[in-house]
């Protein structure tokens, strides 16, 4: 029994894992070309500054230093070889190692993503289940209004409103500088709880609607009717049979949103002045910092691919039909 079950699972995981390689290579090639197609050049931007004037001799000297005078295929080959060894080089804007630039921001972005996910899941699953169980009652309508409002409200706007409320009503503003949780938990939460709420609310709206519709679908399945006919306790039917199966699409949403939050909180990070990956991303693109932009895209793409991979494995665990397909 173990042997027959183990082989398809291992094959399934291996297949999914190997699929990650061409995906990452495709992303790498695409971003390498796209960032160079966009007009503007890191060297000119840096040398011109606010005065607008720049010396062509110095520009040529700096371009050569960064290897930008070499043919594109050569630049791509050098960069790919480095990326394969997880060496993304140095930032063309700051000259600091790419890993150092990312490491500084990663902890903050990861924490906001985790906190927003906790907020979202804590709201979405109970509300979604409740709305499904009380379909077409006032409870259902209230949950639907709550979730539609969440979908319609941009998280950066909610962030601005939160800041204004804190500022005008309580004459208080969240700390402007990030303090790691292990250094000062109170200071850390005082800064990060607000963006987590602003982002988590929109995130929960998507997940709530998904939970509700998935639950409604599952509750109409034959096996739920069979479980009820067997006289199983309603609580057990909901938790063991209905919720577990309804979680498949919800997990997909939660997983993808989580990966998105790692690098996608561009405007929210600006509103709350969070030194995260989203803000770094914007600066890297604005500065035409090729090496940093490429590394960040690879990081976010990698996060999506890994989250997808983990979800595939989780699906296979939750639904045995998938791993035998």
């Amino acid at each position, binding site marked *: 029994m173990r042997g027959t079950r183990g082989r398809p699972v291992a094959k399934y995981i291996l297949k999914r894992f190997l699929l990650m390689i061409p995906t990452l290579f495709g992303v790498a090639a695409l971003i390498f070309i796209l960032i160079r197609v966009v007009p503007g050049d890191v060297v000119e931007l*840096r040398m011109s500054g606010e005065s607008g004037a720049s010396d*062509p001799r110095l520009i040529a000297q700096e371009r050569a230093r960064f290897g930008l005078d070499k043919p594109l295929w050569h630049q791509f080959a050098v960069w790919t070889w480095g990326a394969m060894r997880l060496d993304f080089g140095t930032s063309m804007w700051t000259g600091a190692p790419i890993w150092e630039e990312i490491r500084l921001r990663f902890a903050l972005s990861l924490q906001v993503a985790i906190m927003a996910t906790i907020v979202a899941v804590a709201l979405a699953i109970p509300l979604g289940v409740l709305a499904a169980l009380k379909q077409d009652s006032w409870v259902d309508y209230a949950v639907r209004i709550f979730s539609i409002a969440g979908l319609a409200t941009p998280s950066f706007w909610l962030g601005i409103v939160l800041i204004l409320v804190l500022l005008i009503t309580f004459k208080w503003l969240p700390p402007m500088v990030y303090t790691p949780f292990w250094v000062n938990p109170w200071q850390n939460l005082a800064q990060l709880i607000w963006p987590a709420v602003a982002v988590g609310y929109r995130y929960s709206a998507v997940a709530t609607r998904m939970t509700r519709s998935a639950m409604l679908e599952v509750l109409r399945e034959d096996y739920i009717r069979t479980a009820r006919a067997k006289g199983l306790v309603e609580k057990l039917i909901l938790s063991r049979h209905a919720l577990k199966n309804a979680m498949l699409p919800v997990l997909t949403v939660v997983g993808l949103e989580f990966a998105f939050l790692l690098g996608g909180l561009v405007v929210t990070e600006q509103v709350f002045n969070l030194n995260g990956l989203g803000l770094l991303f914007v600066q890297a693109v604005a500065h035409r910092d090729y090496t940093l932009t490429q590394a960040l895209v690879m990081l976010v793409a990698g996060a999506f691919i890994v989250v997808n991979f983990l979800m595939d494995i989780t699906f296979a665990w939750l639904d045995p039909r998938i791993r035998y397909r």
Partner: protein
Amino acid sequence: MRHRGSWILSSLVTAALALAIGWTAPAAAQDKPRSGGELTFVVPSEPPSYDAHREETFGVIHPMAPHYSTLLKVDPFDKTGTKPVGDLAESWTIAKDGRTYTFKLRQGVKFHDGSAMTSKDVKASYDKIIFPPAGVVSLRQSAYRAVEAVEAPDPQTVRFKLKWPEGSFLLNLASPWNWVYKADILAKDMHWYEKNVMGTGPFKFVEHVKGSHWVGKKNADYWDKGKPYLDGYRAIFISSSSAQVAAVRGERAHIQFRGFTPADRDSLGQALGNKITVQESPWDCILMVAMNHQKKPFDDKRVRRAMTLALDRYGASQSLSKIAIVKEVAGIQVPGTPFATPPDELAKLAGYWKDVNASRAEAKKLLKEAGVPDGFAFTFKNRGIPQPYEPLGIWLIDQWRQVGLNVKQEIIEASAYHPMLKRGDFETAMDFQCGFIVEPDLDLPRFLSDSSANYGKSGDKVLDDLYNRQARATDVEERKKILRAFEKRLLDEEVHSMMTLQWHRIIPHNSKVKGWTITPSHYLNNQLDTVWLAE
């Protein structure tokens, strides 16, 4: 009756005196600098590297200038930002032929590692700026073309030998970018200062967390005893303008040294009342219109003159200053500074006439003469930055429409803007200039025929000649005369370029911040040695 009158008079005098004492006594107490406290300020940009000799952004100057000294600096209390005073230099002499400048350095100045600063360090720093070795970038090298050699005859003396006399040389040595580095370090590694800090300034480096903040602490061994007043400072990097305003409003930051918009000033004033002090100044930044001389009909000076005549600059000064960071009507120099055009002379230039109707009638006549039909359409390229590009762009389009020109605006993303200008891929475009000291030698080279920043490709050798003559004129009045001729040719006769309005710098700061004076440049006055915090 006379008696009663004198009693009233004496009462009034007494009351006036009492009032005067009442007002001045606390003010005097307030004005006495107080030591202690940490100044927190917002920086909207971040240093790409730590070496000011190779950088061009205020993101380097604002957080890092307090760690360094320069040979000369601009007087921190001079509102024009044009008066040089000694920083490391205690005194100086200029040879009669204007070609040798000799500086005596202060005694007892120490680097933050405890080593003594000598002329060797000043020479090594200026050699790096003026004669950089291969592979070392120095962005302001061309500003010192007149320098033949920098010498250090003894530990306390530095001598600059020039190839020709230069009226602006002394002020040019007060450049806020020319930090004095340690010679021994430069001898070992010319790139060391790109990633490290070691200066003689009033504050020592504590930490820099990229994307977050920069911290400095008081240098107890600073040469100017009693200074700095602050225990330290913290620069917080905030790129979003709304978050910057929120930081000042929420009293998380005392000040932002670059500038806020009129709307931000008003909202902060309303929210914080007398907790906010506002300082304003004309700003040494200006947006101009580049007209491509290689594209028809902008190769015709009658068309270019018509375009500047269409602008009601005085009206715009009133209206735009309420919504944008522009205000003063200006020629080639910032109003209020030594070489600025007097208003009555300015009013004689095309586009600066007080009678805008006459000006526009002349514009229409010129367009007709040049064969430009009514409703002629062209594209104006503008930079995708809200302040002040957006309102000024809309204003220009409206003004040109009033003389029968049909303008289509094309917004170009900020990062792609400069390459577009350099390619000459435009008919008309917004051009920009931001200086660190208001000085013709620094502000005018962009209009010269061989300048890479002469985007309109005007190639006017007469301007080149006028520029060179003013640069070498040592007599101030003589220099002013040549500058007026330069200005007349540039803006009136040939109209190679046209000025919009001078930027207007607005700094609303926490009223606790004392000892800081606004200047026309956001690159100046950031050493923080004179700044203190009231209780």
